[in-house]
């Protein structure tokens, strides 16, 4: 039986009826057409589906949309404010933090969480904070530099 849910995504309230088994990542992509959040491994390992739920970075492939009822979700589409890139987005641009781009939305959300909790992280702390996000292209060095850039910037 479908359940009525109300989720605020990137500042916009959405009221939808969903099957309880619908995962948050599918809700965002298929119901709201916010395809910036990616489906990667589907086993809560790769982090491509990372979004902020009430300010906490979470893997949206391991959360049912019904669990997010009443919460505030921020996806990669909602990170820039008034046309200004978030410092982490700018860092990825300036420091070439991506190649194929598949992991990038999740990486950026996870990196934003790192800086929110620790504005001046060491390289080691950045790497530790990105443990839940896999990149198969960059070898991570440029991603770490992108986060360092964002830390200096913000």
């Amino acid at each position, binding site marked *: 039986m479908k359940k009525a849910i109300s989720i605020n995504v990137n500042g916009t309230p959405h009221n939808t009826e969903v099957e309880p088994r619908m995962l948050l990542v599918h809700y965002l992509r298929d119901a709201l057409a916010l395809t910036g959040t990616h489906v990667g491994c589907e*086993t809560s390992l790769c*982090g491509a589906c990372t979004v902020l739920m009430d300010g*906490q970075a979470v893997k949206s492939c*391991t*959360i049912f949309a019904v*669990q997010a009822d009443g919460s505030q979700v921020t996806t990669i589409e909602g990170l820039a404010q008034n046309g200004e890139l978030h410092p982490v987005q700018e860092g990825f641009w300036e420091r070439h933090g991506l190649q194929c781009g598949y992991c990038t939305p999740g990486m950026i959300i996870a990196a934003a969480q790192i800086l929110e909790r620790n504005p001046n992280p060491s390289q080691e702390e950045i790497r530790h*904070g990105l443990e*839940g996000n896999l990149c198969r292209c960059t070898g991570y060095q440029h991603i770490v530099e992108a986060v360092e850039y964002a830390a200096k910037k913000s």
Partner: protein
Amino acid sequence: MIPVQFDYVAPATLDEAARLLAEHQDEAKLLAGGHSLIPAMKLRLAQPSLLIDIGRIKDLAYITEEGDQIRIGAMTTHYQIEASERLKEICPLLPECAASIGDVQVRNKGTIGGSLAHADPAADWPAAILALDAEMIAVGAQGERTIRAQDFFVDMLTTSLEPNEILREIRVPQPQKNTAQAYMKVAQPASGFAVVGIAVNLTRGDDGRCQSANIGITGVAAKAYRASNVESALAGNALDEQTIAAAAAHAADGVDANSDLYASADYRRHLAEVYTRRAIQKAIAKL
């Protein structure tokens, strides 16, 4: 990977959750953070026809002190424990263990109660909870009861919770002064689960000797266990390198060790010994 269809309820109170569970215990599952259950449901290893989400019950996520006990609500996330400055001060084993679980996103959502009730043989919490000699408070249709950590883990993915009981709270005795604690693990590189995980909680007397030692070990066997032969080899003795090494040799005594693609039973036993030694040394170094 889509789970089979199920019905979903999110009760507002623990009483209501207990009533629903008692009514539907054969076909229902409790949903806490969901980071063990949802992956199992996506693989269709678990196919409950009803999910009772206890995530909307108020006041199940807390860390408080009551007399000589630390009380942790079952829905407290790993991150809340990892980030607790008070726990770092009075019982560092808890935040240290929390910080070693999965990754940031998993720790933001996964809960201590969910992990304990799931009783994965490679989960981190069972080692710490055993070493701390904690108590679990379970609520069921017949009321509340207390289960000691040692009686809680029964077998792989099996606890002594009754099908109609909900784990509500974890109570940890406040460590006394001169208590040394540490958690060390060998993480499976892909999953982050413990190949072995060693939790140490020991007390040094004024004479410099070990007064008591609790060692919890996870990852090695079908369920986490107390390494009682290590504990008795330490108790009453000087905490020197030789004693510690000799004691650690008993880390897997009498244990039927797991074997999988990543680590054979022999390798796990070896890791258990080496990491027990290192974890004890790490704990003592903090005194």
